[in-house]
């Protein structure tokens, strides 16, 4: 490969990587999530982060952070707690990658300095290179296996950039092994080296050496078949010791490439003809460069963001540099998430997500929706359905905190969810209790009449609200007002300016009159505390509170349909 081409490509990918890093890191100070994120400017946020970092690093907390760095960042303690298989896989892959990078990819820069008498064709390096490559492959395989065990019933969120990066990594590893195998088996390479180091490329004079390299070094000579005589091999070994041994260990220690070279032997003539070594080298090197340039734009940017997140989490409240720091930490979370899905497997509402068929209840999916909302992509027209599902996910979260406590990169997800809910509300998607009360009950009832009845055919009334659907459950109401008299919401709300529009007894009466739609948007239905005083006290045994719960669920469903109908109109 021409040096100029190599260097141009290297510098181009380094520049792209650097620009990408600047862009992604600046997002930590640009992206606004949560109501408290609206005021501070990116400059203020960056300044707060710098000041805060310096003050934390100069405090006694720094020692603690050193521990966090070793245990959480290097040894992945939090991942260990979540699953040994993935932990081992991740450790293996990272270790293999880092060592391969140092010893092999950066050989001219570092490898030669770090490793004594480094030669790519000598042991132990010949062996280690294959070992590191296998560590990466095995590590990735273990992580995938661990991932498939933590099933949530939903496919992982689509991530084309991340998948492409993994494909690039696979290309680098496979071409690397193939290239090594090709070089081992290549007769052309043998003659080139022989000329350089033994002073001849004459096949006749090299006969003993050829015999030895064919039988012990895996070179595929087209004109040399079958076993060699011990005499010839002994002569070859003499020559080898003089001219080759200083730079060449037996390639059998390259435990992946050598068997591969043996397997490739019959095809070597064709591969040499087609200059496979050149093609493989180009593929190998350019896949590395493309990977380097694209790294900041994939989820593998977490190599930078996740350690930072862990350190911030370890710094405790000191790491938040209030208030600008907390805001920046949320933006960082979007990058630090590795989409491992451990949170999803632990999520308290995962059974609800499965039953409702809405993955946006699950943390890792919700985080992507939060990213989309922060980037202004969620609220675009044409994505209304997804937006509503995202809001359902946001508001059905019970804040149990299990996602946060199991997050291997230490994200404060509860804080992120709270901020995301506030942003949804600001964008016109508050909790149902809020959006329902934005209109009076009679307006909702009028709007409901305009919705075609078949819009609700998929959710028959008797299935989702059997008590409200069955007149037998409320027709006994004699309007005695006992329910109203015991209702704490009626009692305390009226005196304090939070009065309800209907009373429980009026809600029952509207049901009796067949005016159910009039109740759905009422304050009484939505301000009902569900305390069951009414139901307990009803002399007719009417299940008033149970009906109220049903009416609220019905309200979410039907008035929700009115809302999205309005959005489409």
């Amino acid at each position, binding site marked *: 490969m021409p040096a100029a081409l190599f260097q141009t490509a290297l510098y181009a990918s380094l520049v792209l990587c650097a620009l990408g890093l600047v862009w992604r890191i600046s997002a930590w100070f640009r992206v606004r999530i949560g109501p408290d994120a609206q005021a501070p400017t990116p400059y203020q946020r960056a300044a707060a982060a710098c000041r805060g970092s310096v003050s934390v690093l100069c405090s006694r907390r720094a020692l603690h952070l050193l521990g966090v760095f070793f245990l959480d960042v290097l040894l992945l303690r939090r991942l260990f707690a979540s699953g040994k298989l993935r932990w081992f896989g991740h450790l293996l892959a990272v270790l293999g990658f880092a060592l391969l990078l140092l010893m092999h990819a950066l050989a001219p820069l570092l490898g030669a300095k770090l490793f004594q008498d480094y030669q790519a064709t000598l042991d132990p390096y010949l062996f280690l290179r294959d070992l590191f490559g296998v560590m990466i492959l095995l590590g990735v395989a273990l992580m995938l296996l661990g991932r498939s065990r933590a099933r949530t*019933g939903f496919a992982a969120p689509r991530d084309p950039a991340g998948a492409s990066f993994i494909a690039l990594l696979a290309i680098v590893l496979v071409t690397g092994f193939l290239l090594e195998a090709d070089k081992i088996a290549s007769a052309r390479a043998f003659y080139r080296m022989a000329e350089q180091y033994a002073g001849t490329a004459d096949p006749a004079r090299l006969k003993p050496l050829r015999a030895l390299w064919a039988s012990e070094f895996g070179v595929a000579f087209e004109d040399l078949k079958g076993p060699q005589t011990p005499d010839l091999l002994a002569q070859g070994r003499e020559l080898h010791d003089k001219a080759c041994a200083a730079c060449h260990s037996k390639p059998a220690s390259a435990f992946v490439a050598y068997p591969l070279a043996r397997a490739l032997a019959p095809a070597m003539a064709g591969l040499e003809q087609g200059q496979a070594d050149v093609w493989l080298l180009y593929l190998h090197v350019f896949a590395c460069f493309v990977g380097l340039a694209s790294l900041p734009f994939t989820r593998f940017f977490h190599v930078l963001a996740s350690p930072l997140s862990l350190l911030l989490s370890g710094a405790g409240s000191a790491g938040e540099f209030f208030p600008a720091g907390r805001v920046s930490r949320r933006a960082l979370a979007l990058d630090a998430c590795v989409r491992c899905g451990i949170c999803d497997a632990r*999520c*308290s*509402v*995962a*059974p*609800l997500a*499965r*039953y*409702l068929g809405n993955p946006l209840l699950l943390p890792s999916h919700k985080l992507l929706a939060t990213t989309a909302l922060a980037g202004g992509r969620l609220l675009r027209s044409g994505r209304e359905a997804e937006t509503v599902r995202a809001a*359902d996910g946001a508001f*059905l979260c*019970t*804040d*149990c*905190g*299990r996602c946060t406590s199991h997050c291997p990169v230490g994200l404060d997800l*509860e804080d992120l969810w709270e901020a995301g809910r506030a942003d949804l509300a600001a964008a016109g998607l508050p*909790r*149902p*209790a*809020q959006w329902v009360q934005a209109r009076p009950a009679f307006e909702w009832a009028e709007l409901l009449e305009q919705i075609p009845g078949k819009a609700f055919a998929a959710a028959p009334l008797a*299935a*989702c*609200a*059997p008590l409200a659907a069955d007149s037998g459950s409320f027709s006994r109401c004699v309007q005695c007002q006992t329910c109203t008299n015991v209702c*704490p*919401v009626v009692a*305390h*709300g009226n005196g*304090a300016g*939070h009065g309800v529009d209907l009373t429980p007894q009026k809600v029952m009466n509207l049901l009796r009159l067949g005016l159910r739609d009039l109740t759905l948007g009422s304050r009484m239905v*939505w*301000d009902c*505390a*569900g*305390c*069951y*005083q009414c*139901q*307990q006290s009803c002399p007719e045994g009417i*299940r008033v*509170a*149970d009906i109220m*719960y*049903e009416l*609220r*669920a019905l309200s*979410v*469903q039907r008035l929700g349909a009115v809302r999205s109908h309005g959005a489409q109109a």
Partner: protein
Amino acid sequence: MKYALFLGCKIPSKLPAYETSTRAVLRHLGVTLVDLEFDCCGFPARNFSRDAFVVAAARNLALAERAGLDLLAPCACCYGTLRQAMRFLGEDAALRARVTQALAAEGLVWTRKARVEHLLTLLARELGADVLAAAVRSPHTGLRVAAQYGCHVLRPGEVAQFDNPAAPTLFETLIGATGATPVDWPRRLDCCGDPLHEANAPLSGIMAQIKIADAVESGAEMLCTACPHCHLRFDAAQTGSPDQSIRTMLYTQLLGLALGLPAQSLGLAAPLAPRNP
């Protein structure tokens, strides 16, 4: 005595002291607690979809059933929700069919085997107030305590099966067992206001304040709770309130102190200050 501890969502994240003190007290009393992979009881989904709420609840019941255990809920709302779900499953065959199908996808079945107990019913009925009283080492003699039942352990009575929903005595008896004096207060059966916090925060706050004022007026020095929702709502209402004459304490903490357990093991910063005679 062995139960699957159903902590729900609120206790681990917002009131870990309730978990700590429950475990400490029950260990002391010889009750074994088992941790299963429970999820949300279904309560927050009740306003959203009846089916989804019952499925979530039934999954938890089925998990306990598979382990051959009864559930123990320290949260009144989890207790009420799980029992409500059992009622709905019992009376609605079509719902039961849908839920059975959803559970089958995970290899789970619900056959009504697992019972649901609340912490207070376990202490009062399975163990007995007299057993507790006999185990008390440092009684809270003279401490006037108002019992906050929590709506969903009481009502609807036929579902909760807890005590007489109109005139319960179970909690007062348990308070008496610690040596404290239960206080009769007119609003003891009212809602704490917590369920309204999202929908109508001002009204929710008013409801909590009215209850606290009523307890103070009735001479209580302490509001004793057995539900994270009530407890956290009172705590929030008390924060910044000029009247600090009453404190909120979990029943497990009150009992634990009386049993002579160290305050730290109950999630308390310090034991109760000695009372002026």
